[in-house]
């Protein structure tokens, strides 16, 4: 029987003798094993057993393997099969490509993860706003220092770079803290998702691509958050900055 069925019915475990109700009649069965067989819940037995229990050896389902792989080839084959079988008097009720059902399942699950990505991006935006606020305050508090720097010859570019540099350090520190913090969070998210949707392996180390994506996002957020404070710092008149209390 399938692993999904074993998960749904704890009574069905290898070695268990169970009573199945099939077609209104009870039938004693032994569970001989659990197998990975896709997302469905089903149990298999010898065809002779099916004939003996339900009194009918006829079948309603066929699974087909294509001689050649490929989406177009498989789509073409299933259409030709339906047509050919209809012509031979075997009317087909429904046909489904495994590739299509897999894509549907994956899309459905990834949509849930997509909402989480969206929420995380909103959190990063909030972090960017906090950084912008902090840097704006820092520029205000350093008005006189900025005035002194300008008085001794610092250019707009240098003053802007000082602000950007400080913002970058804060953003990189945030990134450095985020990497170890993401490990327990990944485990918690994967476990929650597994309980609700589908068991997924919990990431015990940050994925390389995710770390790089976060680095790129942190740099962009940092530049965006520090742009306005840096611009403000370069636009304070020197005399006004020096006189700032």
């Amino acid at each position, binding site marked *: 029987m399938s692993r999904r069925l074993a998960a749904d019915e704890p009574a069905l475990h290898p070695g268990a003798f169970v009573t199945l109700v099939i077609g209104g009649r009870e039938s004693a069965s032994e569970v001989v094993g659990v197998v990975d067989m896709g997302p469905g819940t089903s149990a298999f037995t010898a065809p002779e057993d099916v004939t003996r229990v*339900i009194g009918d050896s006829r079948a309603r389902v*066929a699974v087909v393997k294509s001689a050649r792989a490929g989406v177009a080839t498989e789509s073409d084959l299933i259409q030709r099969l339906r047509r050919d079988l209809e012509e031979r008097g075997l009317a087909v009720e429904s046909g489904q490509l495994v590739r299509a059902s897999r894509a549907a399942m994956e899309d459905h699950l990834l949509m849930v993860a997509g909402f*989480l*990505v969206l929420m*995380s991006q909103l959190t990063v935006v909030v*972090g960017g706003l906090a950084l912008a*606020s902090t840097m704006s305050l820092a520029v205000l508090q350093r008005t006189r220092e900025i005035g002194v720097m300008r*008085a001794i010859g610092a250019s707009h570019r240098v003053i802007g770079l000082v602000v950007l540099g400080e913002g970058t350090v804060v953003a990189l520190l945030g990134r450095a803290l985020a990497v170890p913090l993401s490990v327990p969070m990944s485990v918690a998210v994967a476990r929650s998702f597994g309980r609700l949707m589908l068991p997924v392996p919990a990431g015990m180390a940050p994925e390389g691509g995710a770390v790089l994506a976060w680095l790129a996002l942190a740099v962009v957020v940092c530049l965006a958050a520090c742009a306005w404070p840096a611009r403000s710092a370069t636009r304070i008149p020197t005399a006004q900055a020096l006189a700032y209390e």
Partner: protein
Amino acid sequence: MSAVPERTKSRLMGAVESASARRSPAAAGAGSPSPARMALTLATLAMGGAIFMASLDLRTSIRGSVEELYGHAVRYDMSLRFVEPHAADSIVSAVRATEGVGDVEVWSGANAWVKHDDGLLGNGFPWRGSHGTLGCWPFRCSRDGGSALATYGGSW
């Protein structure tokens, strides 16, 4: 280069000296953002980054699990359900007659329910008998390491 007027220069230098000499709270260390504000900013950035990376990890995990479900375990490319049941041999021969078919397996069966000790029935599931030689299932897991189902594949 234009010369700076003497009066402006002296005013500027006076302001610089005055600014350097003053020890107001702003000049005495309040120039940096407060530690609490900085800690909150860092915490927000770190939390956002951690959730961002966790969500990307989850996407990878989902793809891995779907690959685990379908990639290794499902060995056929398409399934067909007929309006009426037919003899397994006639389905196999009709399907094989179409060009491009690699292999075919036919399933007979009915829905089954587990009868629990308390007399209640569990959820229904398909109970099937397999006709054919496709060997759709790899049977990687079974009782005692696989011996019970190892002979499957057309010769149960």
